């Protein structure tokens, strides 16, 4: 080659080399982000792969119409038939097999939810989602829920039959994991770039512990310390009373056909105690920590479950009826999963389960039905401990002697396995300690006691009558529930069941107790016959709605305080009293009844106050307009109503003005306000000092506060929604908001109109994140019939039709017919079928 020709060739080669280098660099980057996660973005290769990546989530949105699998440990074949609502009906020949299949099918639909809930309890979320969950994990470890759950699991003898059932369930979950194809990995794992972890039997107990945190947590001592610092001890006792001012108890009082108004005159507020307020505010911060709130699943909420049962003589068909309406945090996928388990001659139970728990806590069989509302009893006490070192204690004082503290080292790991944080949790003989404002408090809580609720629920689900069911559940520890049952023999019964502590004389469950004396420890627990309960009452029906279970005139023993206002119970009882031929459809309608028993208690006095102010010539124009509008109101919180918004705003104003004494310094995030029943109590004292608004020079009275409240409500509603009209529709204002478990946008469902308001059976005065988690009605006729729905669907796959297919019926207050076939052949044309066979 000549020199002249060689120059362009070199240039061409150089440019070719440059192109290779450039393309190589881009390829290297593309491969790197394809193979490795970049921050929160998962590795793109496996994510975008249309064969096995996130797109496979679409391909596996629906279950295969027919599938057969061999799984380890199974003794006989198990037939699983899914009905038209995608509910699996599991037909097995023995209990262990039914549990294996149970674990398999639940994992197939709700795998991510099972792991997430387990990790939330165990305090290992950081391993899944990264350091953003560190505070949640620290809180969970400090609570000791997983620690307690592991103790419970270890306490169950290896040979106990119920232990085998929990193990069989875990084997079923793991059998699903073992045969799961990469295409079936749930959506959330793909977004997180994570893989599912194997399931361990004790995780079942984690879930039960988590329910205790949601339902049986009681911070009354800490909260009351704050209230006392603000208004004094007497006032605090009156505002958050042990005895509810309106008595409509769960255990009926013979001959009483209306609520008992046990109203008292509220003692005046004492001046703020600034010294105590500092500690109180630290307590308040601990109580309202976002981590604790997230773990407990609460926020700005009004939680309220309902249940009721009607004896045959008050039903149209002459069979007992039972309605269950537990309210919890609403999530997608739902907290509940519907299932039917059958082992011929042994078990034939239909109901809802919490994914991960091989039990049916709410359901029915061929002979009876059961449901629950939360009792809200005080089963958690705080003790102030004296320790040998303020920062790193090793001992605590008890009866004048030093006792060693148990130490629990908790290492919290991140996604890479690196330890993010190590915490030391100290335990006294009462339970784990926490340190607030330099004080060490230990916690005695029944949720951490050794117990086996799983076995009890399992045994109870086989009961043939109300008496059998209640006898089995007599040993139930917690979270304390108002268990309601009805059977085909025509019996109905209710009992507030849980382990209720007996405290030494002079020791209150409402105040922090001196921990240096063993004599201050609990003495024991209530005997079963003292539990609030009723069997086949003369009134012919039973109902509970979280209200105080026993009227103190019947039994003044301390069970708890600051009971939810009983307006829901009053409404249920009013509806049941008025209907002597109740039908299942009436039971369904009652569940979404939009009327509140509280409105009349405030609207009437407000009208009177506005009339007086008008006559005196001092009425505010807006108050007059507001009162005129509320005169048109039927008192119902229906979605189309255009007046409920005004009442709601008036109550907000009234509450804010009345309890202004409870607003502490700006450091306090949210001072709790007394229940509405206490406000009703105060309404009877027109000149109470509580009516005075501290920020004004005038001395307010009840009437002036009522007039100011309706006036301010009219102004605020008009400012926000314009003049009275369609924009005032309740459906625009009060809606349900169902978030995905990870709160991912697009995976939740929001702005769902609800017939709910203050004091209605579906209370929703918070952010709409809580509500009816499962509604069902059972007719205990010789051939049991049932109807039900929940806000969501059976599948955890967000692009499946079964992810939220029940939402429309739930929103409309409708219930679906629940299929309860006697055998596999009894389910005509199943939507899907799965056959599980033993491994050869």
């Amino acid at each position: 080659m000549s020199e002249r020709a060689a120059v362009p060739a070199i240039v061409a080669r150089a440019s070719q080399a440059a192109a290779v280098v450039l393309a190589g660099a881009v390829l290297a980057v593309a491969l790197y982000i394809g193979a490795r996660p970049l921050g929160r973005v998962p590795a793109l290769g496996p994510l975008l792969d249309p064969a096995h990546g996130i797109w496979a989530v679409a391909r596996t949105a629906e279950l295969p119409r027919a599938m057969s699998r061999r799984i380890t440990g199974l003794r006989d074949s198990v037939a699983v038939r899914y009905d038209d609502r995608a509910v699996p009906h599991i037909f097995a020949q023995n209990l262990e097999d039914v549990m294996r299949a149970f674990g398999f099918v639940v994992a197939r639909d709700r795998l991510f939810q099972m792991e997430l809930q387990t990790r939330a309890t165990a305090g290992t979320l950081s391993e899944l989602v990264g350091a953003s969950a560190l505070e949640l994990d620290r809180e969970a470890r400090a609570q000791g829920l997983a620690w307690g759950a592991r103790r419970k699991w270890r306490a169950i003898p290896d040979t106990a039959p119920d232990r085998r059932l929990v193990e069989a369930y875990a084997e079923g979950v793991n059998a699903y994991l073992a045969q799961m194809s990469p295409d079936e990995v749930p959506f959330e794992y793909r977004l997180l770039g994570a893989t599912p972890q194997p399931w361990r039997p004790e995780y079942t107990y984690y879930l039960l512990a988590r329910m205790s945190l949601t339902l049986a947590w009681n911070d009354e001592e800490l909260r009351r310390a704050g209230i006392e610092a603000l208004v004094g001890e007497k006032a605090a006792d009156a505002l958050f009373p042990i005895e509810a001012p309106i008595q409509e108890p769960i255990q009926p009082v013979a001959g009483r056909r209306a609520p008992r108004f046990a109203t008292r005159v509220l003692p005046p507020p004492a001046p703020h105690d600034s010294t105590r307020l500092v500690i109180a505010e630290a307590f308040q911060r601990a109580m309202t920590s976002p981590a604790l709130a997230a773990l407990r699943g609460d926020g700005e909420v009004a939680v309220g479950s309902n249940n009721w049962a009607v004896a045959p003589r008050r039903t149209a068909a002459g069979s007992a009826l039972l309605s269950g309406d537990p309210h919890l945090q609403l999530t997608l996928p739902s907290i509940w999963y519907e299932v039917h388990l059958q082992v011929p001659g042994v078990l034939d139970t239909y109901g809802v389960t919490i994914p991960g728990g091989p039990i049916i806590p709410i359901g029915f069989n061929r002979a009876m039905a059961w449901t629950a509302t939360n009792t809200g009893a005080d089963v958690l006490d705080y003790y102030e401990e004296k320790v040998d070192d303020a920062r790193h204690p090793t001992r605590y004082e008890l009866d004048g002697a030093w006792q060693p503290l148990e130490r629990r080292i908790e290492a919290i790991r991140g996604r890479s396995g690196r330890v993010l944080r190590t915490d030391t949790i100290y335990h006294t003989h009462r339970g784990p300690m926490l340190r607030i404002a330099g004080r060490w408090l230990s916690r005695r809580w029944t949720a951490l006691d050794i117990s086996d609720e799983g076995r009890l629920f399992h045994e109870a689900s086989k009961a043939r009558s109300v008496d059998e069911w209640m006898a089995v559940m007599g040993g139930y520890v917690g979270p304390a529930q108002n268990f309601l049952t009805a059977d085909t023999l025509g019996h109905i019964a209710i009992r507030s069941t849980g382990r209720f502590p007996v405290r030494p004389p002079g020791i209150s469950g409402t105040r922090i107790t001196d921990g240096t004396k063993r004599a201050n420890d609990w003495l024991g627990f209530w005997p079963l016959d003292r539990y609030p309960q009723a069997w086949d009452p003369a009134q012919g029906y039973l109902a509970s709605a979280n209200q105080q279970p026993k009227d103190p005139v019947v039994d003044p023993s301390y069970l708890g305080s600051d009971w939810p206002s009983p307006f829901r119970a009053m409404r249920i009882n009013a509806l049941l009293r008025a209907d002597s031929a109740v039908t299942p459809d009436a039971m369904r309608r009652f569940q979404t009844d939009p009327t509140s028993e509280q409105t009349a208690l405030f609207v009437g006095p407000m009208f009177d106050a506005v009339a007086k102010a008008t006559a005196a010539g001092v009425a505010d124009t807006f108050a007059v307009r507001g009162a005129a509008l509320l005169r048109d109101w039927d008192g119902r919180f229906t979605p189309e109503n255009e007046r409920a918004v005004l009442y709601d705003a008036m109550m907000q104003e009234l509450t804010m003005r009345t309890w202004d004494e409870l607003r502490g310094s700006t450091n306090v995030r949210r001072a709790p306000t007394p229940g509405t029943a206490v406000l009703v109590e105060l309404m009877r004292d027109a000149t109470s000092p509580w009516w005075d608004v501290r920020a004004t020079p005038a001395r307010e009275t009840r009437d002036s506060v009522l007039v100011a409240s309706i006036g301010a409500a009219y102004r605020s509603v008009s400012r926000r929604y314009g003049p009275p009209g369609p924009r005032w529709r309740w459906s625009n204002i009060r809606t349900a908001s169902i978030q995905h478990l990870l709160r991912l946008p697009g995976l939740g469902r929001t702005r769902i109109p609800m017939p709910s308001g203050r004091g209605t059976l579906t209370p929703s005065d918070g952010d709409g994140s809580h509500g009816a988690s499962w509604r069902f009605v059972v007719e205990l006729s010789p051939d049991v019939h049932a109807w039900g729905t929940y806000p969501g669907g059976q599948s955890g796959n967000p692009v499946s039709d079964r992810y939220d297919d029940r939402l429309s019926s739930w929103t409309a207050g409708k219930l679906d017919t629940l299929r309860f076939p006697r055998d596999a052949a009894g389910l005509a044309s199943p939507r899907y079928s799965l056959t599980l066979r033993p491994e050869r």
Partner: protein
Amino acid sequence: MKWLAQFIALTTLIAGGTWWLGWWMVPVAAAVYGAWGARQRSAALTAMLAAAAAWGALLVYDASVGPVMRLSALFGTVFHLSPGTLLVVTLAYAGLLAATAAVCARGIRRLMTPA
């Protein structure tokens, strides 16, 4: 015609490779094609189009058995992107992998060939 035959063969290879072996078959198949067709100026373009077509075909299959568009829209909502972004990113990623792999392989092959 020859180009079309090569394109179809490469598309089939990438689709099959992805289905049976995984996403990394895209750059591998494209690199092989790039090295083999080193004399062709359009090797990178062909590889890019074939990869996008292969993954597109797999997506069409996915759509025939599941709600692919719903998934794409959902993904967009989760990451605050437009509904079709996931679809576009998927095809673009396959194309990018294939094109760059083909350019590299073709370039190396040509550089190693004596002038």
